[in-house]
């Protein structure tokens, strides 16, 4: 597979995962906010910005709808949902001949829906998704976010069912799970600063909503309840989001899947993985597979989470150096 193609598939997947994560974060918080006092809103939305890595040029001004609008439609902000969808679609256009027609249709329709508000694209009578300058009502905003999420899920579905699970598909997995692992680490960190800290100052009753918000932001609420019942405790939540083996948004699951995809790519490309990449991915996987939540809680959790994020970044850079931007001389010699 061409190096450039691998790179584009990887980024297409990462951008869509990012769009989905941001969408869900906004949707969950817009919903939970309704149950709170206005005073609590500050904390909530500052945390959302934390979880998104505090995008520069975006500040909390006290209006959740304005913030949502900015994080959704502002294309001058590279992490906005719209920017992510445009970037994903642009990457897929570069590899148009590599992905299936169904994948392209799904992604291109999503792109047209969000970028061409005036176009009546849908003959089946569905209402249009409007990238309207002012998505004035809450209902519209929520509806928009849900349709984006649905479209991304549909894309993942057709990706799995129409594209050969060869090297290209594996690069899509790598992109998705690296993005997911970093995002989940950042999400837990954002909540941790607020909630695991001594919390005598917390207003009564909001705690449950916050824990639920954290779980739902990782689509984990239902899955958590199946394992631990609706009894939410900080230790269990941490254990579930970090170490659960079967839940697709947990860190452990993400890193396992990443490792799996890297193995498959190594087999397909026949390229010897460098010691560097094996060491990085293997170390991270082992630390998540063989840790107990008690051990993690005994240390500095924030530092631990940041460590995971840093390792994801290192893995990303190593993949790039190895499969995409390798030196010609070295390749000729090998």
């Amino acid at each position, binding site marked *: *597979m061409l*190096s450039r193609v691998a790179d584009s598939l990887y980024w297409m997947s990462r951008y869509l995962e990012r769009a989905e994560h941001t969408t869900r974060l906004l949707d969950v918080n817009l919903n939970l906010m309704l149950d709170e006092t206005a005073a609590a809103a500050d904390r909530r939305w500052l945390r959302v910005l934390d979880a998104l890595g505090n995008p520069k040029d975006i500040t909390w001004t006290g209006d959740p709808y304005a913030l949502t609008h900015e994080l959704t439609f502002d294309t001058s902000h590279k992490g906005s949902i719209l920017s992510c969808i445009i970037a994903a679609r642009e990457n897929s256009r570069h590899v*148009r001949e590599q992905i299936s027609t169904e994948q392209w249709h799904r992604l291109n329709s999503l792109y047209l829906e969000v970028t061409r508000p005036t176009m009546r*694209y849908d*003959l089946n009578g569905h209402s249009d998704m409007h990238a309207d300058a002012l998505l004035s009502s809450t209902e519209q905003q929520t509806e928009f976010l849900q349709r984006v999420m649905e479209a991304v899920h549909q894309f993942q579905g057709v990706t799995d069912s129409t594209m050969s699970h060869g090297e290209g598909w594996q690069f899509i997995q790598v992109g998705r799970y690296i993005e997911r692992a970093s995002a989940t680490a950042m999400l837990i960190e954002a909540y941790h600063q607020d909630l695991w800290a001594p919390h005598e100052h917390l207003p009564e009753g909001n705690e449950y909503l916050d824990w639920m918000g954290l779980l739902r932001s990782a689509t984990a609420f239902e899955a958590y309840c199946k394992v631990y019942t609706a009894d939410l405790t900080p230790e269990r939540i941490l254990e579930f989001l970090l170490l659960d083996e079967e839940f697709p948004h947990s860190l452990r699951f993400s890193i396992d899947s990443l490792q799996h995809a890297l193995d498959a790519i190594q087999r397909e490309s*026949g*390229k010897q993985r460098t010691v560097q990449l094996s060491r990085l991915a293997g170390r991270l996987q082992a630390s998540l597979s063989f840790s107990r939540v008690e051990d993690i809680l005994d240390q500095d959790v924030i530092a631990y989470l940041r460590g995971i994020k840093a390792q994801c970044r290192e893995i990303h850079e190593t993949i790039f150096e190895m*499969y*995409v931007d390798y030196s010609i001389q070295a390749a000729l010699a090998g």
Partner: protein
Amino acid sequence: MTPIQSNQFAHPALKNYLLDHAFDEMFESENELRNHYEPLLEHFTALSADELRRRKQSADLSFLNQGITFTVYGRDEGTERIFPYDLLPRIITSAEWDTVERGLTQRLTALNLFLKDIYSEGRILNDGVVPREIVYSCKHFRRQMIGLQVPRNVYVAICGTDLIRLENGEFVVLEDNLRVPSGVSYMLTNRRVMKRIFPQLFRSYNVRPIEQYTQLLLGTLRSLAPEGRPEPNIVLLSPGVFNSAYFEHAYLARQMGIELVEGRDLVTHDNVVYMRTTSGLRRVDVIYRRVDDDFIDPLAFRGDSILGVAGLFNAYRAGNVTLANAFGTGVADDKALYAYVPDIIKYYLSEEPVLQNVKTYLLTDPKSRQHVLQNLDKLVVKAVGESGGYGMLIGPQSTAAQREEFAAKIQADPRNYIAQPTISFSRAPCLIGDDLEPRHVDLRPYVLYGDKVTVVPGGLTRVALKRGSLVVNSSQGGGSKDTWVLSK
């Protein structure tokens, strides 16, 4: 111009269908429908306006969703447009096609012999059949190609020739496109959409299939592989996603199952071309290139090109890689050389040309130049190296100022221009609003040359959608329609 009065065809949708002196593809005369258009007209006039609109919308949506768009340069918002599409197919009988096919085969064979000759001995130049100046002053002539042996002596493997029909219905050649002809993906996708939207109508005609084009193209490319490479690695080289024909590049690569590469994916080492893959460097044997000569190798041609591959020409020269089309083929589709193509056919094949040329005035000849300058209001003037409908003066539709501008240009650089009579080429029915109206059309069939010459039965029919317009280019308000070649 009189409206059609016949009772048989007095359908309200035809109220604006006015015949003039141009050949009409559908009507023989005011009261006489051509046989092969009868089922089509019947089918369309039986559909309600609403139903037609619904199908039209469904076709448009299908193009948009598939991303079948072309890029409009110079604007940043909404740069992707769909190529306007007309719902009525253009129908060509098997007898008509027979002539076209013979003519194109003959023409491509002769032009390849010509290229071989001028890049080796130059017999045709020594014999004075084609003047040396015409060849050597052409900006697409590549001195670097002299004495270079190309596989099977095939210079032009892929060609798309523009044909028009004169007032008597005869097909003539308007332009040979021998460099990187485009549009074949529209031919293929138009057909797919048409079959989906009018399945019954399609079935009732006995239309020859064109789906095999991509397989034929792959076979052509494979047959040109360098010797000793039995399993050649074939790639399509595209300038990239910002090129107006990117959709086509991606489409063809996907349909053929070959890699779509850009210049930055390729490297050369010891005169061998490689592509960068995740498993290391992989050798490339055949390149179907959609990048112009000028931009393809910054070492051999334009040094400022960032689209090309440094060292590609040397690898080609060494015979380690085949390019289709070869370098330097543009000399044979130069608009001034065009005037000599009938002589070229006679010279190499000792045959009369099956398809005629349009009369062409070479402006380097003082007498012709004088005549053209006096008759600018009646003629069409074209710059020899331009395409896409740019750099053109259509005399009868021009202003005095435009004519003055062109007169000055011609006098400054006569080799750069040719003139032709303004031809009112044939018109075919199109759906304009809710009515059928005639619009001027041309035809670009696609010809492949590997083991042998193959003409795919069909082509891209381009339509000048503006009433009265003679310019069919998509950049200038043109559209396209499906082209049905009937079997015997």
